């Protein structure tokens, strides 16, 4: 009983991490049709900032906004040049550009932060553990699940329930009309990219407690996030949530049931899934012209 509950919670906490990393990627993808492979770099930057912040003795909870700001700033710089020129280009060119940038970012971070594996010193408040039917479950993971739910909700409210979100969605559908209304869509898109990069950094800060921070992590996280977003189906918020749950549960329970073949099973399952539903779990109705 406790075993099943804790393994489910394990899956949920990993799903929450996937959701956090996937959201940033999915926001630019669904709203701006922009594939950003540098997202893993934003994530890792956030991790490093959080590790350094938590090691510095400053109030621990400020580490998360700090990571958001640092990655958002990096996003703002990259948005001005060269992302902005590539919004209207085909996906292939976006993939290539952002992949190249991710290589540069990764090497710069290795230069700046070193090649050592760094881990954050978690505050005492998050180090505890709860016992469920005599099975231990770390408090930090409950915090992750909570953060995932809260951030997901906030983002959904922002995009779906505010005027800003409405303008944004309108600009995605028809940029010209929104421009004629006197709204500068360039600023709008820039804001979305900064938000996405910031989310990447924030998820890095939250994930550092679980995944640590080291060169190469950016790539690992990027792959997980991409798989999450794609399995969920591009272009919808609900899809990313569903994708995070599917991937999180697949990866966790393949480890529970077939630890030795965990990756083969999980990858095959996801590939099979994409074969059956080539457009992901929740595909927005699209009309081909």
């Amino acid at each position, binding site marked *: 009983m406790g075993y099943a509950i804790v*393994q489910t919670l394990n899956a949920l906490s990993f799903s929450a991490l996937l959701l956090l990393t996937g959201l940033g990627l999915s926001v630019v993808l669904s709203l701006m049709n922009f594939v950003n492979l540098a997202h893993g770099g934003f994530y890792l930057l956030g991790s490093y900032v959080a590790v350094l912040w938590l090691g510095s003795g400053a109030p621990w909870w400020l580490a998360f906004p700090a990571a958001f700001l640092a990655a958002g700033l990096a996003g703002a710089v990259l948005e001005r040049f060269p992302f902005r020129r590539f919004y209207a280009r085909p996906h292939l060119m976006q993939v290539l550009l952002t992949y190249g940038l991710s290589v540069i970012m990764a090497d710069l971070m*290795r230069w700046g932060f070193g090649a050592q594996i760094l881990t954050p010193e978690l505050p005492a408040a998050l180090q505890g553990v709860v016992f469920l039917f005599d099975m231990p479950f770390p408090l930090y993971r409950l915090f992750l699940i909570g953060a995932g739910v809260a951030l997901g909700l906030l983002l959904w409210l922002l995009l779906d329930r505010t005027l800003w979100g409405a303008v944004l969605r309108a600009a995605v559908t028809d940029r010209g009309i929104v421009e004629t209304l006197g709204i500068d869509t360039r600023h709008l898109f820039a804001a979305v990219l900064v938000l996405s990069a910031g989310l990447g950094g924030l998820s890095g800060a939250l994930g550092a407690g679980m995944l640590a921070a*080291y*060169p190469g992590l950016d790539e690992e996280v990027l792959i997980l996030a991409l798989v999450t977003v794609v399995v969920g189906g591009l272009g919808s918020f609900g899809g990313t949530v569903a994708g995070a749950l599917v991937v999180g549960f697949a990866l*966790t329970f393949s*480890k*529970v049931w077939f*630890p030795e073949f965990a990756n083969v099973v999980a990858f095959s399952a996801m590939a099979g899934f994409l074969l059956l539903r080539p457009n992901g779990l929740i595909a927005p109705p699209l009309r081909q012209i």
Partner: protein
Amino acid sequence: MDRLHRRKNLRTGNSAPPSAPHLAPGRRLVLGGIAATLAGLPPARPTLAQTTLAQPSLPQPALVQARPVRIGMITSLSGPFTALGESMRAGMQLLLAQSGHRLAGRPVEFLVEDDLARSEEGARKARKLIGQDRVDLLCGVISSGVALALRDVVTEARTPTFLLGSANDLARGAASPFIVRPTKTNWMLGTTAARWAHEKLSGARVLTVGSDYAAGREYIGDFAATYQQLGGRLGRQLWTPLGSADFGPLLTTIAAERPEAVYGFFAGSDAVRFLRQWKEYRLAGRVPLFGAGAFFDQEDVLPAVGDAALGALGTFHQSPTAPASAAFNQAYMATGKPLPGEFSTTGYVCGQVIRATLERADGDLADWAKACGALFSAPVETAFGTMPFDPRNGQAILDIHVNEVRRGEDGRMVNTVLHTYEKLRDPGPDA
């Protein structure tokens, strides 16, 4: 020499021409190489006249000694072993600096190449060092896969190589007359861990958990084999893919098994995540944990896991508290580095063995069989302790320490020697 003649795949006596002692090519040559490669033109090589002139001059030691000795190192400066590769290079550089960049009276030129922890990349870099940079000897390598890929490359080129990496096969099927192995094999650590477990945990049912790749399989397979041989009982054997993001599911499984002890092997980021989560899931302190090798590496893992590994036991040929390592610890930390772990020490020891080889051969490796014989004739004093070599396979015979992770004076975690198994010798060709 004996060893050379006994090998069946040997195409050589000791009269074959040595790798040609060309004049040292400079960067110009390398740049020329780029251009040449792009243009499909030949590299700027020494002319025929130089080559033929240089070879007859070999037997005259005075000329040989004036020439710098070129040492090529292949290590991982990007990819998953970056931090280890940087440590290895730092260890070697420290030894060269201490020797005043002269070994056996010859100035040293030290060239480092990055293998990205990829075998094909390592093989290409080795060929470059041998074929273009004309190194006198090669050393290095973190990944056993790269080491195994290099085996045939250096054997074919007849380049003396001090090959690190720890796959058992390197001391067995892949041994080569041109390869010296101044480090451990996985078997040495796995089997001593089993002996220690048998002595101290008498009869405990041990659950094993490890990274599912070649090294993990060897560390755990050799442990399991020896432990069962000694009459120990094994519990479940769990494997997890290399590079697992989340150990939560695995640790929950372990917690549900309620094992009497856990033996494991992970390396690098896997080790860090496993140990931190080991503590988060409250297994630390409740279940005895022991392991082998890089699992509790002093430089790579322990600084990143806080007190999560406190009390854990590991078998290793390296320990910062081993007496032989003391002088190296001092010198290494004086360069602003932390307490040394496996790969910085290995890099340094590799340098010490190279130095001993050159000194015993009077700086002349032209007759490799003779130089090798001199190296194997007596042990070398190294930071791993007194190191004799097994002449059958060029494998070092090592003291293996049982380390306990303890809190040091400054509050940091330190691998502390509890016991030492002396003179472990890999079964080598007998296995």
